[in-house]
């Protein structure tokens, strides 16, 4: 191209050549990429929306077919769940009761311990202790749930059966405690994030008035970080509801309406696993129960997640 420009004498041609050369600076390939990539990347992002739609559509479709055979009112009010054994009955409450029992035990373990750890890490701990404890909690969060399930069966259950003579091999207490241990890191790191976000000046103000460390922690930092703490507790609750392998292994498979943590129970997630392990023919009522129970589970966790996000915004202290 430069040779071409030198050979011609007309200024107009020179300018044309220069313009042509400047266009050459924008290489053709990237020009094409700038047209294709935004669309390709958009499709990647749209996949997440498609996933949500996929989940909702599959759940609603099969659940609708299920409720054509089983009246919705029986499902939502019934107190007996035995879809696999005659006489069949389809009341969801025993599964919800089992799930709540596990979740409440788990939160009783995880929220106080997680919150106390968060206060220690953000207000008291020297740098060295933080640099040891935080990675350990991260490891605890990364342990697969199947490993926790084994831990519940082989370590916690024997201890509980030693303490309470009437506890079964499978009991809600052991499973609940281990689910609680599993969600400690989550409560701790989310609350700690909320506490670290409280500005230094608020603490300094309290210290200047002669407050001790715990007064600063409990009367200044915790109230200021309250929204984040509530959100972390709600998310932990939702996580405990959806936990599957620990409860499948350690809590048993007998759905019942009970508040006794020493008995064997069944959660919604454990029921879904139980059915999918067996040979249930596609299209049968038993197959439909997976989706009805899955739908219940999805709706509950979805509402809780929305509630957590709402809590994080609603109770936000302005500082």
């Amino acid at each position, binding site marked *: 191209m430069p040779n071409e420009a030198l050979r011609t004498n007309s200024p107009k041609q020179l300018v044309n050549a220069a313009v042509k050369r400047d266009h050459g600076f*924008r290489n053709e390939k*990237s*020009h094409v*990429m*700038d047209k294709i990539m*935004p669309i390709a990347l958009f*499709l*990647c*992002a749209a*996949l*997440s*929306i498609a996933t*949500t739609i*996929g*989940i909702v559509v*599959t*759940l609603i479709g099969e659940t609708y077919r299920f409720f054509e055979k089983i009246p919705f009112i029986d499902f939502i009010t019934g107190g007996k769940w035995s879809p696999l054994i005659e006489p069949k009955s389809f009341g969801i409450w025993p599964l919800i009761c089992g799930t709540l029992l596990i979740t409440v035990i788990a939160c009783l373990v995880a929220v*106080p311990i997680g919150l*106390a*750890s968060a*206060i*220690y*890490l953000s207000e*008291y701990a020297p740098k060295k202790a933080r640099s040891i*404890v935080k990675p*350990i*909690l991260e*490891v*605890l969060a*990364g342990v*697969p*749930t*199947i*490993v926790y*399930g*084994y831990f519940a*069966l*082989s*370590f916690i259950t024997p201890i509980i059966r030693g303490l309470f003579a009437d506890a079964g091999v499978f009991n809600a207490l052991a499973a609940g405690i281990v689910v609680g*241990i599993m969600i*400690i890191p989550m409560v701790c790191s989310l609350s700690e994030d909320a506490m670290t976000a409280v500005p230094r000046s608020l603490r300094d103000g309290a210290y200047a008035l002669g407050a*001790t*460390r*715990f*007064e600063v922690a409990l009367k200044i930092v915790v109230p200021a970080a309250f929204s984040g703490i509530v959100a972390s507790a709600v*998310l932990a609750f*939702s*996580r405990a*509801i*959806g936990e*599957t*392998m620990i409860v499948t292994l350690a809590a048993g498979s007998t759905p019942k309406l009970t508040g006794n943590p020493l008995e064997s129970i069944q959660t919604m997630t454990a029921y*879904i696993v139980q059915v*999918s*392990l067996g040979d249930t023919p596609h299209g049968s009522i038993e197959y439909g129960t*997976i*989706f009805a129970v899955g739908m219940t589970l*999805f709706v509950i*966790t*979805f509402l809780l997640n929305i509630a957590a996000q709402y809590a994080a915004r609603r109770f936000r202290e302005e500082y």
Partner: protein
Amino acid sequence: MSSIFVDANRKQIAGRRRIDFALKLLFLVATSIGVMALMALLIDIITDGIAMVRPELFNNFPSRRASEAGMKSAIVGSLYMLLIMAPLSFLLGVGAAIYLEEYAKKNRITRLTQLNISTLAGVPSIVYGILGLTLFVRELHLGRSLLAGSFTMTLLVLPIIIVSAQEAIRAVPKSRRDASYALGATKWQTVSRSVLPSCISSILTGVILAMSRAIGETAPLVMIGALTFVAFLPSGPMDSFTVMPIQIYNWVSRPQASFQELAASGIIVLLIMLLLMNLSAILLRNKYNKLS
């Protein structure tokens, strides 16, 4: 008169100091519970399973006899799944993150997508299993195959990868982009040659952590129908398969004590694999921190 005040004041201060000290101990004890739980878990598993970690565990297929049983098919199944899942979820996840951070306009649809991603991260893994069972196994006729399992797990880890990649991209200073534009680069040239190279290691860290989550995940694959007794190696993506957590689940749910020990030894192998993945993520992070 004034000395009484001072005395009362001193008493009060001493009392508050005592409460402060007691609470500090309480918080410390609470923190150490998490640490002790991890110790107990590791010690429990190692004492139960270390004797069964032997060559047969890696060379043999599952068997009815605990003394001969191994997890070769499960280890290979997990690795194959990783092989399909890692590139797929990397491309889709990082692509979505780039779109949201660099291209998307700040409007309602973008906010909705963002909200949707954080909600998806909170959906129980077993619900993804139900989705995979209906969509991949039945509707797309993939059957109970390696491919169906890998696709399901990809959907499961995508929200985690997207969020961590977004954080990595957001941490790249604006001046870097401006410099690239000032040199006349186009948007894609800026993103692909300036922004991504400067944050690729922290993106990879997030991807590796998400992969280690997927390797330990059991529930969705139980739903998909990954088999518990596979005495062969999958020969292609459409073959049936099993993975390590499912093999462990199968062993744990057997009543015999010898299978419990086998399960513990399987857990040791799984944990070592996760440890290696996490270690590589940490090394990558440290290397990056040193560079910048």
